[in-house]
């Protein structure tokens, strides 16, 4: 190959180009992983993926907009392989934007062993996720339930007064996962 590089002595040599290209390869490999936190930040700003706040907010009193009524629906879903009963006490509730509401959920560990559960919330439509404010929620923490134990879990929330006017219904969905293995290890 000396012959090849000798043919263009005025050009940059191979190893210089290779070094740059290999650097790009590693940078792009890193970029793939950097997309993970970037995606979270991006979704946080845009509400792209329907994720809601993960720590409680402090209620800001900006008045109650009684001219609008929003229907908030609750859905629960068990991930594969978690033997719990988990459901909302009421399926839907009407709220005015800015009004604080409290609803409770019922959970029971129907199995014969202790399980740590984690409920993961998601709001649909995704755009509304940023306006659904949870003051207190059981989903902020893990729920360890002993075999056969049952529990009432609370959710305190309000819908932000700035909610876009075309949205009249929100669906809050909880998926319950068994995270015992992860907690244990």
């Amino acid at each position, binding site marked *: *190959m000396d*012959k*090849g*590089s000798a*043919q*263009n002595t005025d*050009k*940059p*040599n*191979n190893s210089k*180009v*290779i070094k740059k*290209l*290999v650097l*790009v*390869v*590693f*940078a*792009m*490999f*890193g*970029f*793939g*992983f950097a*997309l*993970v936190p970037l*995606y979270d930040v991006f*979704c946080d700003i*845009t*509400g*792209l*993926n*329907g*994720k809601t706040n993960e720590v409680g907010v402090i209620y800001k009193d900006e008045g109650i907009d009684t001219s609008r009524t929003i229907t908030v629906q609750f859905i629960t879903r068990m*991930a*594969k392989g978690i033997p719990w009963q988990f459901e909302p006490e009421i399926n839907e509730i009407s709220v005015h934007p800015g009004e604080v509401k409290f609803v409770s959920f019922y959970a029971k560990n129907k199995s014969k062993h202790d399980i740590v559960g*984690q409920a*993961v919330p*998601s709001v*649909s*439509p*995704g*755009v509304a996720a940023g306006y659904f404010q949870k003051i207190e929620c059981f989903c902020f923490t893990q729920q360890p339930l002993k075999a056969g134990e049952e529990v009432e879990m609370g959710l305190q929330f309000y819908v932000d007064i700035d909610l876009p006017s075309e949205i009249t219904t929100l669906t809050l969905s909880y*998926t319950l*996962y*068994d*995270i015992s*293995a*992860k907690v244990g*290890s």
Partner: protein
Amino acid sequence: MATEIINESLDDAHTDDHHDYKMTGIKRWLYTTNHKDIGTLYLWFAFIMFLTGGALAMVIRAELFQPGLQIVEPDFFNQLTTVHGLIMVFGAIMPAFTGFANWMLPMMIGAPDMALPRMNNWSFWILPFAFAILLSSFFMESGAPNFGWTFYAPLSTTYSNGSTAFFVFAVHIMGISSIMGAINIVVTIMNLRAPGMTYMKMPLFVWTFFITAYLLIAVMPVLAGVVTMLLTDTYFGTSFFDAAGGGDPVMFQHIFWFFGHPEVYIMILPAFGIVSTTIPAFSRKKLFGYSSMVYATSSIALLSFVVWAHHMFTTGMPLFGELFFMYCTMLIAVPTGVKVFNWVATMWRGSLSFETPMLFSIAFVILFTIGGFSGLMLAMTPVDFQYHDTYFVVAHFHYVLVTGSLFSIYAGAYYWLPKWTGHMYNDSLSKWHFWCSLISVNLLFFPMHFLGLAGMPRRIPDYALQFADFNKWVSIGGFAFGLSQLIFLAVVIKCIKGGKKAPAKPWDGAEGLEWTVASPAPYHTFSTPPKID
């Protein structure tokens, strides 16, 4: 471009050089660092993989010949569609183009070989291992990957049949091979051009491979990253795509398609390069709008990075996102249209002749444009909600990949076979190959448009009764197309074994340095660079 023919006699002068020593038997191929040998290896490997992936497709079409489950179980059907896709993308189309790059790039730019010949050997020889790993999973208890070639999480993590690790390592090796091949192409083109060959004097073929290589270097590492995340999610308890641990399965689709969309241009830009070589040759005119072709190729490559989410319109994006990705996607039609018009303008008032490479090139222009138009339909968010995950999508990407990429590969293969083998191919047999392929491929893929519009979902082994007639036609087209490809195998073998002796330049309209060397091309060409005016 005007070229000076100075090298043929010089080549002979160098035969005493120790480089000309050829090992015999298998060692020649295992240890080779010669770009022509490695190009040949790539092309044969791609063809074997093409027949393998094709055989899987035959089983798919046999199952879909009539409604109900006849031949295979649904789970095995999923394995067939998954591995068919992976093999055709990573095993057939991409290595075939790398084979073209290896054979032709050094000869087109007047270089003695690729810039990094040892790495070249390495990048080919790890490929068979990748596909051995992937295909071996068919013979294991858990079976081959069954989550679709797009391997969406959680199908490939939580619900995987246990083949994820094999899949991931196979993809890692394919990725490393592609990246090494791409680095080699970039270094070769940057450093080994003959004196006087400026960037804007390079044949368009060289330009398209140059740009494709950059795309590969940019996105193959992202693919490596996303499969690594799958691996750790499945086996090491991370939660990149697992909502239980704070991850998000939709993020998988974003990262995958950030790789995936540039990937589809990796599979079509070299095709543009090939037909931009063959169409001028058989029109006996210069390529119309050379520089606009270069800029169009570059802009397609750049735009490919900002359109990925058009694969994900139904995942519930905000309206702004859907509009952004819709308009960006439609924007790609502009440079692509420039290319199509340039090819047509090249043929306009040319002295056309219809040798087999030209037939495949013209079929490419027409049928690729059909695939492009169905792509535009899919780009429109509101209608995509109807077309998403139906046979319309299957029809679209097979039009661009089979009648697009594959037909261009055939055009290129027929065009350069005389240079590679030193013999002319059997003309009538090659015409049989073309016409059988052309008719059967349309019978195979055109009705899929209507099936998709009528609502037949993809990746399902069974279908509703009203789709039965069309599926029967599609399957017949599929079998006919599969058989037609064996004609090509016959043509190639006959051409290697003998045939009419090919002159150095068998096509009177052909241009480029590769036609200044003898046919078959000597083992070493351009040991002394030619001069370009």
